[in-house]
């Protein structure tokens, strides 16, 4: 093909695209919007792709879940299994479990789809969690993004509920055991618990109503809400613009990065296929939830090593660690052993998580907008609080696997439980103090790097025998990052009275706020002043000159 011919054929393609685009624009007037969309600039950082993993896992869940609905039958009608898995042939079971077995053994591609669906669910909640940690530790939740943080908390809660619903549907022994615990938790709600449980389960446990009901919730209600909230979540990211890390040329009023088209279109699109590929690869190679081994659910059976999926593990762990306390008041039982670990602790944790942006804003008195992310070390108190909460969560999580741990490491399960009970109270404060110290240490190192340069590892011996290591100023990029630290003064503690001696009605509250603000900020290492920086620059110029002269002289 000659050059002119190729050009001509390209023109034909372009004009065809143009015609199609024109057709759409004539009807939707969408050209402006599309152009803005495609030109939208996104900043680049690997940690900004954690939310993408969650989004793509969700899409994979919708697709694989749709396939499963074609074959799954959420019915509690009793049938006798006659499929191709021999060890269960002739066993009485619910139609739900039997159809789940058929998906695994008799539907083409069913096993792969079931495993893709389940692995993607584990991926989904894991990705949401690490995305949340990234947003928290970089302070991305600060004004103006508090509402999106709240939506994110809602998404996490719903994702956990949705996962638990899916885990409960196949009506195998593990599902039923999980539901029995869930029913116990509902019953533990004071006063109304038993009524609510009877209402939700349509009578006594397990009954025949709950699995069909749960199915509607799992495939329609929660995914619908999730989809809606994810859409709002993304529109808000788009509308408020993505945050960015500090760096050369990056300010609070710009976004440095690439346009959506073509760079991010390719990257994000490609990453979707990578996530799908990795999920499929795992699903094709590694078993998840072997329902055929658990057998059908009957309330008279239980298996050692009954565990929920990982994201419920911390709640199970909390139940396992709580001592067996029950009160009986006026022939009404208050089950603190379930109320505390399964309702009060998660209630407090999710509430604190959701309102954290407002708590921090109130404590610091910070009303500014933030588009440049914090480096975790530069907000030591927040980072330490985060690590403290994380260590609390992790200990509960570990406790959820206490029996597996006891068998795997030849430990007494009682020792494991008591160790974790003490650790639950001892480790988080320790984690707080350690994290804060590490952050402050890193701040000091940053300041030293700015004022004295980094250690090059080049050691010189001077003519009179002295050894010195050459320090060089940090690179242009690193300097911009290091200089991004802003000193925020703690709020001043006022006397609570104005100059006329009138008590400020809000004085007490302001005093508490100021004290907390002091706790949040005071130990921070101050950023170097202009004079200090100028002096350092001069010192470098001078010192380097001296070294070079020495080196030349010695030859």
């Amino acid at each position: 093909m000659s050059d002119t011919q190729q050009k001509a054929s390209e023109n034909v393609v372009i004009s065809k695209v143009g015609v199609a685009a024109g057709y759409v624009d004539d009807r939707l007037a969408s050209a402006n919007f599309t152009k803005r969309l495609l030109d939208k600039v996104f900043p680049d950082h690997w940690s900004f792709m954690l939310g993408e993993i969650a989004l793509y896992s969700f899409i994979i869940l919708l697709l694989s879940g749709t396939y499963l609905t074609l074959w799954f039958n959420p019915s509690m009608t009793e049938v006798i299994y006659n499929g191709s898995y021999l060890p269960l042939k002739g066993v009485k079971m619910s139609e739900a479990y039997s159809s789940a077995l058929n998906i695994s053994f008799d539907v083409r591609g069913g096993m792969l789809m079931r495993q893709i669906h389940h692995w993607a669910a584990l991926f989904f909640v894991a990705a949401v969690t690490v995305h949340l940690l990234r947003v928290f530790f970089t302070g991305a939740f600060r004004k103006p993004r508090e509402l999106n943080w709240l939506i994110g908390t809602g998404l996490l809660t719903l994702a956990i509920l949705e996962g638990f619903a899916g885990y409960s549907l196949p009506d195998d022994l593990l599902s039923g055991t999980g539901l029995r615990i869930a029913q116990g938790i509902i019953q533990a709600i004071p006063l109304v618990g038993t009524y609510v449980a009877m209402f939700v389960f349509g009578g006594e446990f397990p009954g025949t109503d709950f699995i069909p009901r749960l199915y509607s919730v799992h495939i329609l209600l929660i995914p619908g809400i999730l989809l809606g909230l994810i859409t709002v979540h993304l529109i808000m990211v788009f509308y408020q613009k993505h945050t960015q890390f500090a760096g050369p040329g990056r300010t609070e009023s710009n976004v440095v990065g690439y346009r959506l088209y073509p760079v991010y279109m390719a990257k994000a699109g490609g990453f979707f296929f990578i996530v799908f590929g990795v999920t499929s690869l795992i699903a094709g190679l590694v078993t998840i939830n072997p329902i055929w081994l658990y057998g059908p659910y009957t309330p008279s059976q239980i298996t050692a090593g009954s565990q929920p999926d990982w994201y419920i593990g911390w709640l199970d762990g909390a139940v396992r660690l709580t001592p067996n306390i029950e009160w009986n008041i006026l022939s009404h039982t208050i089950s603190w052993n379930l109320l505390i670990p399964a309702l009060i602790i998660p209630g407090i944790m999710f509430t604190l998580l959701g309102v954290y942006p407002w708590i921090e804003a109130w404590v610091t008195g910070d009303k500014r907008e933030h588009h440049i992310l914090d480096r975790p070390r530069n907000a030591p108190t927040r980072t330490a609080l985060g690590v403290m909460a994380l260590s609390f969560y992790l200990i509960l999580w570990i406790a959820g696997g206490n029996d597996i741990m006891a068998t795997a490491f030849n430990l007494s399960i009682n020792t494991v439980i008591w160790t974790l009970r003490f650790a639950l109270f001892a480790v988080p404060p320790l984690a707080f103090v350690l994290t804060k110290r590490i952050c402050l240490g890193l701040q000091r190192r940053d300041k030293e790097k700015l004022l004295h340069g980094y250690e090059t590892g080049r050691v010189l011996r001077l003519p009179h025998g002295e050894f010195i290591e050459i320090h060089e100023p940090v690179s242009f990029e690193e300097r911009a990052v290091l200089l991004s630290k802003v000193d925020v003064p703690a709020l001043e503690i006022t006397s609570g009275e104005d100059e006329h001696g009138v008590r400020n009605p809000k004085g007490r509250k302001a005093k508490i706020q100021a004290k907390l603000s002091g706790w949040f900020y005071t130990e921070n290492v101050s950023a170097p002043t202009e004079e200090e920086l100028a002096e350092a620059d001069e010192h470098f110029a001078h010192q380097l000159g001296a070294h070079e002269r020495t080196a030349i002289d010695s030859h």
Partner: protein
Amino acid sequence: MAISRRHPAALLAVLVVALGTTGAAYAAVAAGTAPKVSAPSATQVTAGKQLFLEGCSSCHGLAAQGSTDAPSLIGVGAAAVDFNVATGRMPMAGPGIQAPVKKVVYSPAEIAALAAYIASLGPGPQIPTVEDVSTADADLALGGELFRTNCAQCHSFSGRGGALSEGRWAPSLMKSSAKHIYEAMLSGPQSMPVFSDNTMRPTDKRDIIRYIEELQKQEDPGGYGLGRLGTVTEGLFIWVIGLGALLGIAVWIGAKSR
């Protein structure tokens, strides 16, 4: 008011007669089903006694009557001896909460002699024969049901074992032989309850063994089985391998953009 024609002691007499008859009838039936003590050769018993005195009596007592450290072995039967000694659980390496499986110390002939000696002390469950543990006609699906009802609560759904209280454990059944499983059900070693032939028929036992054998040889139809330990290893896998891979790729994509 009618005068009672019955003597006040009549009710008592009836009760005594009824209980006596029932008891006698039961004793007659029970005697019929009680395990027969096979007649081992006298030399085996003598050899077994010698081995017992050398290797076991320091804990179990010179007459196998037990001590503060170890239970009495009178009446535990040959099955218990064969199970504990042929799996290496006995003799124990040292005092502990539970005897683990380890290298077998005695030869088969010595184990038979020890079993003969203990069996000679009192009636107890015998070592099952090859026919007793043959699973050729066993019902796999029923075995699965029985396994999940009676065994899974300690040994777990996959027979991989589980934790019990205070450092005790239910061992994995993945390497257990049919004979040893049968003996364990008969004799109830350590924390395990006894499943005598009155509570669980020999055919039920064979069905269970058939299911355990299926678990031992079954390849995981869904791919690598992660040790069949349930959701804990699945969670570990998704966080370490799964998310590890995706984060690695994310870092790679992020790094390429410079």
